[in-house]
């Protein structure tokens, strides 16, 4: 695998990861993924009150 292919693979992987992470709940359901509210941080806000709510 050459360096450029590897770089593009990493960048596309990162973009796909973020797209899935921030996909709205309605769209997520429509394309057959697990339902749930869009969450930017998946409890990473660190708040005691965060029940994975966002």
């Amino acid at each position: 695998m050459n360096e450029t292919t590897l770089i593009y693979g990493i960048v596309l992987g990162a973009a796909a990861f973020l797209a899935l992470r921030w996909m709205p709940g309605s769209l997520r359901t429509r394309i057959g993924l697990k339902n749930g509210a869009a969450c930017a941080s998946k409890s990473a806000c660190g708040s005691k009150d965060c029940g994975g709510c966002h």
Partner: protein
Amino acid sequence: MNGPAAPEIALVGCPNSGKTSLFNALTGSRQKVANYAGVTVERKEGSFVTPSGRPVKILDLPGTYSLRGRSPDEIVTRDVVLGRLAGEEIPDAVVCVADATNLRLVLRLVMELKAVGRPMVLALNMMDVVERQGGRIDVERLSQELGIPVVSTVAIKKGGTAALLSAIDTLPLHEDPPTEHGWREPSAAEIRAAHAEAARILHECAFHPGNEHLTRKLDAVLLHPVFGIVILLAVLFLMFQAVFSWAAPAMDLIKATIEWTGVEVGGVLPDGLLKSLVVDGIFAGVGAVLVFLPQIVILFFFIILLEDFGYMARAAFLMDRLMAGTGLHGRAFIPLLSSFACAIPGIMAARVIENRRDRIATIMVAPLMTCSARLPVYTLIIAAFIPDRRVLGGFGLQGLVMFGLFAAGIVSALAVAFVMKKLIWREAPEPFIMELPDYKMPAPANVALGLWIRAGAFLRKAGTVILALMILIWFLSTFPAPPEGATGPAIDWSIAGRIGHFLAPVFEPIGFNWQIVVALIPGMAAREVAVGVLGTVYALSATGDEVGRALQPVLAAAWSLPTALSFLVWYVFAPQCVSTLAVVRRETNSRFWPAVMFAYQFALAYVAAFATFHIAGALLR
């Protein structure tokens, strides 16, 4: 042929009674989470099998102190219990969960639930804590007084729900609901009578030593109208001083480790794109954020300690007078306090506020409280531009500035609330009643667990969202490559560089250069990413000897002091978080309020940064 549907039990109780722990203990992983139709209140349903083999469905209802239903959560609980909520069957039975260490409030709720007329059990949760504290509850007597089965539970222990399961087995489930329930909104006299009856039952059935004497003595000082406020300010001040001074050695160690690893890894890789991605993108970007782990841990150490000690509720009490002056409801304190961690749970916590305008005012100002994601930004700029020296009899100047930024967030939140509630809506605040818990020594294991969870969350975010964002930022800052023979840093030719240069004129009046503008855009996803982006953008902008220098001295050389101050002020006010706006949209069920929030925060940030930049510039001239 199908048999009859499994009976449904509603789990009702006061907030923080351990209801959800009990629900989890009963259902394990057999849970379904959704929302009630038309509202943003979470609906949790599960199932379990009783000792006699009977399958039962169970609904975990939002916590409430009564069936009067003042907030959206409480209205859902009331309507489900009364069978009024569209799409919900009236439950076959009710399990009322009580915090056994604080029975008084729940007894009133039990009396209201009894009036509904469904089969019912009272589960005294946390009985182990009552016994550990030397208290006792006469469960049999309590059952006689209330006229319903009463059982002890310890939701967090294996087998702690056995008595409850047996009691559910004895309930007459599957009976037709009565055509008329016996509950109606109680009058003030009936509420007072219920209070008196609850006090009588409590006196007959429970003995709880508590530490009332100590609590009274401490409250005499900590809730004093003058000393109380002075102590609260001193505690907050100490907290921010500690965030700076205690964290320094650990931060230096992490910084040195990341730099050393970056050099070692960079040395192994041949020159080229991959090396640039690893060194300029990942190490410069993610490393710039990771350095702030010790400060996050210290900040939360204080917050958890004060919460466990019982001081946070006192702080709410002390702040109530101040908040009432601005038109905010006393219940707004907890959402605003939660917003110091993150505005999103703070905004969601505003559901406990009954009046819609009070709730919206709280939601609107919650993002002005200084969330933990701002900490890396503040720390970076303060460390680069504010000298590390002692002032005013030994206080660290850097900690003082940090305290000032947190204070600016609080003051601006109160000012915005004042404008909304007193000038636009012209409403008087509703009275605020809250229960102050006894003081207790924080359990080291609980504090350690809390810190572990928060440190883990921060590291997880750095290793996932921030890492992915930094890879994209590196890509946008690297491609397209400059043409042959081009001079200057390659980033000037990149997509990010072009966007930065394009938008720079908008932000030039507030002293921002194009690199800052590039950092603001992904900073909308997560505020602390701005630090990482600055790390990457300046690493890629560097030429010759500048390459590889730590971000802090680079910024100190590249920015003027007015620009740094303007940047700090921008971060106090700016709507720098898309997730917050999304949650406001969800919680208000409207596009109008997130738009208002974005507009007023942007305007406030721009005006404040503009004033800061020009005043600081004039003073330093």
